[in-house]
């Protein structure tokens, strides 16, 4: 099946869901969610059988202009699968979150008005899948906006809940601001290179470097003194200006400092499944786009690579420090996860700031980021499953609501302990491997200050993740606390995710197989 079918099918699934929502039963929208999950699983399976134009160069579709915008390689397949898995789990989470959704939408007594909540993630998923295949800044822009606008809606979905609306507005304004910078940045890159196609941008950069005078319109004075990096960097100012603006916008998506301000508030205010989706899906989409964007800029010999790398390094360092240290004092679990999501972004950007291609002995930056994101998906979604259930059954999202969880539900307590340990990066859990690879990269690149900050960050991470474990095991439950029982969907998902965390912690190879 040609790869572009995947998104088409996803969009189609979204339309079907809207139909079912519109013409199905008014008071129960469960079927919509289940249908979404089933459909997405089918598409996920299809992902493994999709192929790009290289597979059938003779067919008519292989010559469509579509392929100027649509890239299908291993990385694209991985991130498409990633988006699908993430969406599936988010929809599953939403299914168990129905009661809250119903309470804060139209009619507190019925589920009427919650049906779209299962359909919208599917559209966002399509957007993410398109982002994974981005090949052109214009195409990437629209895909990105599809995701962003869907998220505006999903964040503000609980329109009878002030927190959700406040989060929605904050996300809206800051998101639109970043969109403005993105467009402005693309404009400048376009101005500097004459194209929005990433491959062509890369070409123009390499031409400048290797063949001197060939860069005709992009960097006219690049002919002079190519050996002298300073001269080149002077003339690339407009390009770098554009790159900086795009980095700001993408940094906003992935939650990098100093574009992180929205994350804690929006994560806290949004409905929990949305938060989970934001923190995993949106972030991963942002990262694949960042990777696609950086790829031509950081190719060997690129004149802008030093500045971009140092910028990435600065952002990584700031993000690591900010995310980890600010998380220390948090008492709200969702907010803690928000800061943790910033912190993880720091590790991921640190890996990108090294920008090492894969070689014999180890993973490259891109693989590391992808691997890290995969493990991050498991851990983060698992913790949001717990947050959602605690919210439903205890009415609170504070860490204190977890007090004495070990007595209220030992299995859940054990699972959450494992999850938190994984987030903190305890070995033999999936979370460790990612950090381990990042450390390896930093060491290999001799990025000592990066390594130092990562160490400080990871140490602080121990502190705040173990605060949750402390609450689970060491604190006495509140007098009013009742045992927490898990609905089947959540239980099943949690079991699978936790098992995956443990198994992949010992045997991480499967993720890398998927990646290649």
């Amino acid at each position, binding site marked *: 099946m040609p790869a572009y079918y995947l998104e088409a099918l996803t969009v189609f699934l979204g339309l079907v869901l809207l139909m079912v929502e519109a013409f199905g039963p008014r008071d129960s929208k469960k079927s919509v969610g289940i249908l979404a999950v089933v459909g997405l699983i089918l598409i996920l399976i299809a992902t493994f059988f999709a192929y790009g134009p290289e597979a059938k160069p003779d067919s008519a579709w292989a010559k469509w202009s579509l392929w100027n915008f649509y890239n299908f390689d291993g990385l694209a397949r991985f991130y498409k699968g990633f988006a699908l898995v993430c969406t599936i789990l988010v929809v599953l989470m939403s299914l168990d979150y129905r009661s809250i959704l119903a309470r804060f939408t139209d009619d507190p007594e019925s589920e009427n008005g919650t049906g779209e909540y299962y359909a919208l993630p599917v559209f966002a998923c399509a957007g993410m899948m398109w982002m994974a295949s981005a090949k052109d*800044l*214009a195409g990437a*822009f*629209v895909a990105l*906006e599809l995701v962003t*606008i869907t998220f*505006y*809606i999903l964040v*503000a979905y609980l*329109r*009878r809940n*002030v*927190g959700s*609306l*406040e*989060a*929605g*507005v*904050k996300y*809206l*304004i800051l998101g*639109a*601001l970043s*969109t*403005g910078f993105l*467009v*402005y940045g*693309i*404009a*400048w890159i*376009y*101005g500097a290179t*004459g*194209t*929005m196609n990433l491959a062509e941008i890369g070409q123009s950069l390499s031409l400048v470097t290797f063949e001197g005078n060939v860069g005709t*319109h992009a960097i006219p004075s690049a002919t002079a003194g190519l050996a002298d990096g300073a001269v080149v960097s002077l003339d690339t100012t407009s390009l770098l200006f554009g790159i900086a603006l795009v980095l700001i916008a993408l940094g906003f998506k992935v939650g990098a400092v100093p574009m992180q301000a929205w994350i*804690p*508030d*929006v994560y*806290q*205010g949004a409905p929990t499944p949305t938060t989970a989706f934001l923190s995993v899906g949106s972030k991963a989409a942002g990262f694949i786009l960042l990777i696609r964007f950086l790829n031509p800029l950081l190719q060997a010999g690129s004149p802008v690579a030093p500045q971009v790398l140092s910028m990435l390094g600065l952002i990584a360092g700031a993000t690591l420090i900010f995310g980890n240290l600010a998380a220390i*004092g*948090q008492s*709200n679990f969702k*907010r803690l996860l928000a800061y943790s999501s910033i912190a993880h972004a720091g590790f991921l950007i640190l890996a990108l700031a090294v920008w090492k291609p894969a070689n014999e002995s180890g993973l490259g930056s891109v693989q590391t980021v992808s691997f890290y994101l995969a493990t991050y998906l498991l851990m983060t979604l698992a913790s949001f499953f717990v947050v959602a259930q605690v919210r439903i059954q205890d009415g609170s999202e504070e860490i204190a609501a977890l007090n004495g969880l070990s007595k209220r539900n030992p299995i859940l307590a054990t699972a959450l302990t494992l999850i938190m340990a994984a987030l903190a990066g305890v070995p033999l859990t999936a979370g460790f491997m990612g950090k381990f690879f990042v450390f390896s990269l930093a060491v290999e690149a001799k990025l000592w200050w990066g390594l130092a900050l990562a160490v400080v960050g990871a140490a602080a991470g121990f502190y705040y993740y173990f605060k949750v474990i402390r609450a689970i095991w060491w604190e006495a439950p509140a007098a009013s606390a009742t045992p927490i029982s898990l609905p089947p969907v959540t239980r099943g998902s949690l079991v699978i995710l936790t098992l995956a965390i443990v198994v992949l912690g010992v045997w991480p190879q499967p993720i890398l197989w998927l990646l290649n």
Partner: protein
Amino acid sequence: MASLHDYLLVSGLLFAIGLAGVVLRRNIIVMFMCLELMLSAANLTLVAFSRFNGMNGLPDYNGQMLVFFVITVAAAEVSVGLAIIVALYRARQTIHTDDLNSLKG
């Protein structure tokens, strides 16, 4: 005739004015309008580059394509954004940023 720099300068100034509005104004709707200003300024930059990067005697229409997309996206964003703002106003009776502080720390 105006040169590329002239266009870039005025578009950049408009962008800066928009940014100033976002940073300074505390009425969310006005902030939102200023964001539209920024997008328009970016559009102007795009069109200017498209005109001055022209090839074969024509403007480079690839640049203008993005302008259309941006306008469309902006329209969609406005519709969704205004819907959220209206919902917020219904819930809180305010669209002043200083009143949006239930989420913090």
